[in-house]
């Protein structure tokens, strides 16, 4: 009787063994795709860097177009990822692509702001990355990742305010200040905690810096006429 039993165990464990192996394969495959996403994210960052140049400030719309093109790859990469992560196991691999996703959210939100002077909401960003916003759909853009990513653009904006002045564009700091104020108001509704709180504090610094630029321009009468409407 036990003989038979033992064979059953052996069989069962042979099956278990192959399950365990398959999992290791999935993990490796996921890491490979995340590397690709990482590369795209790096390219976009490199393109965006150009907006801080004197010429860049004047060519922002062109820079944004280039970014959009690069970002358009992301959708396919996430679809690859999605096809590798078994349904129901999104959170099993979440930590491996979390940081990269947040960087891509930041880049997307920055481009949207530069093109349309508004914050891209969760669903819009998710859609542009080929992702759902709903957990029920399995593979999605997690709300927290969106919220953290979107808050990561403040540093670049306050730097842009400075460089715009050097390049003679006096209107932009006023616009940026306005946007940062709105962001501040919006995030205030969330009672930010932990990681988000840190980023929120960075927003305060970015806002302070931009306010100083605006103050300095005002002091010197370098306030552009056309900002009246957006200030």
């Amino acid at each position: 009787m036990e003989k038979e039993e033992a064979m059953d165990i052996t069989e069962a464990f042979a099956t278990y063994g192959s399950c365990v192996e398959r999992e290791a394969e999935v993990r490796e495959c996921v890491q490979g795709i995340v590397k690709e996403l990482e590369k795209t994210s790096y390219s976009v960052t490199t393109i965006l860097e150009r907006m801080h140049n004197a010429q860049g400030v004047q060519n922002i719309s062109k820079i944004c177009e280039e970014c959009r093109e690069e970002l358009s790859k992301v959708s396919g990469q996430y679809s690859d990822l999605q096809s590798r992560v078994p349904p129901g196991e999104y959170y099993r691999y979440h930590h491996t692509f979390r940081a990269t996703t947040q960087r891509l959210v930041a880049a997307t939100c920055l481009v949207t702001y530069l093109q349309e002077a508004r914050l891209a909401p969760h669903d819009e960003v998710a859609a542009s990355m080929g992702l759902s916003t709903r957990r029920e759909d399995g593979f999605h853009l997690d709300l927290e990742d969106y919220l953290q990513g979107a808050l990561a653009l403040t540093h670049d904006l306050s730097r842009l305010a400075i460089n715009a002045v050097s390049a003679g564009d006096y209107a932009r700091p006023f616009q940026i200040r306005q946007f940062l104020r709105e962001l501040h108001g919006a995030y205030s509704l969330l009672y930010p905690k932990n990681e988000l709180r840190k980023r929120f504090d960075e927003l305060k610094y970015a806002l302070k810096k931009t306010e100083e630029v605006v103050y300095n321009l005002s002091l010197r009468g370098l306030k552009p006429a056309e900002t009246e409407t957006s200030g």
Partner: protein
Amino acid sequence: GLPGTIASPSQDTVLMDLFREYSKTLDKKNDKYERVYKASRDVTVRSKRVIFSMQRIPGLSEEERETLLGTASGDLRDIEQTLLKHIAMELRDEDPYQFVNAYTAGLQEYIEALSFHHFLLTGSIVSHEEVQRRLTYGPQDEAQAALVPLSVLVRPKEYILGVADLTGELMRFCIKCVSTADFDKCYQICDVLKAMHGGFLSLGYIPAKELYHKMMVFKSSLHKVEEACYSLQLRKSEVPADMLSDVFAMYDAEENSSTPLL
């Protein structure tokens, strides 16, 4: 049972009965601890919200500011009269030091919120006595009048740790004030923080590890505020004093109406 013999089954039952008693006693204490701890956690959450709401003040109109402080005042009163009173009732006739670890975190956060509110109203730091007074509850009806007054013990330690946390909030508030050009508030905060720094230094070596860590955070807050004041001074330096008001008038023209005039 004597040495060399084995305890009888009845001894076994005696032991088990004793331990059933012990178990009840332990459970009673643990349950109380758990209830106090949960209440304290709720105090923390609600106090944090009050603090956060007050952080919105820089840039608001005087009227909005007053409404906001009024709401905060009500919220604080509510925390005192519900959650903290609940803790006080749990602690009646107990050695409060036995449960202090259960409620210290909540109490500190409440003190942080209260002192923040007090500072925004009066420009001064709430006193230890005032905090203890607010958490001492008089008799509610005749029957209880004879009893010891109900209270939550506020050790100087909780008071100091709560006030130490306040410094971080003041720093955040100050940075926001620079944005909204509320210069007086910045200088006022800088002065208060410096006075507190002196106070901490006067304590000498601080044996509490907690406080030591908070001191480090406090020092960095202080430096940030000092640098904010320094940059305000630099701003001022570029404009002759009599020109300053004109500049600000111009500067404010493009502000929307919700920004306070200087």
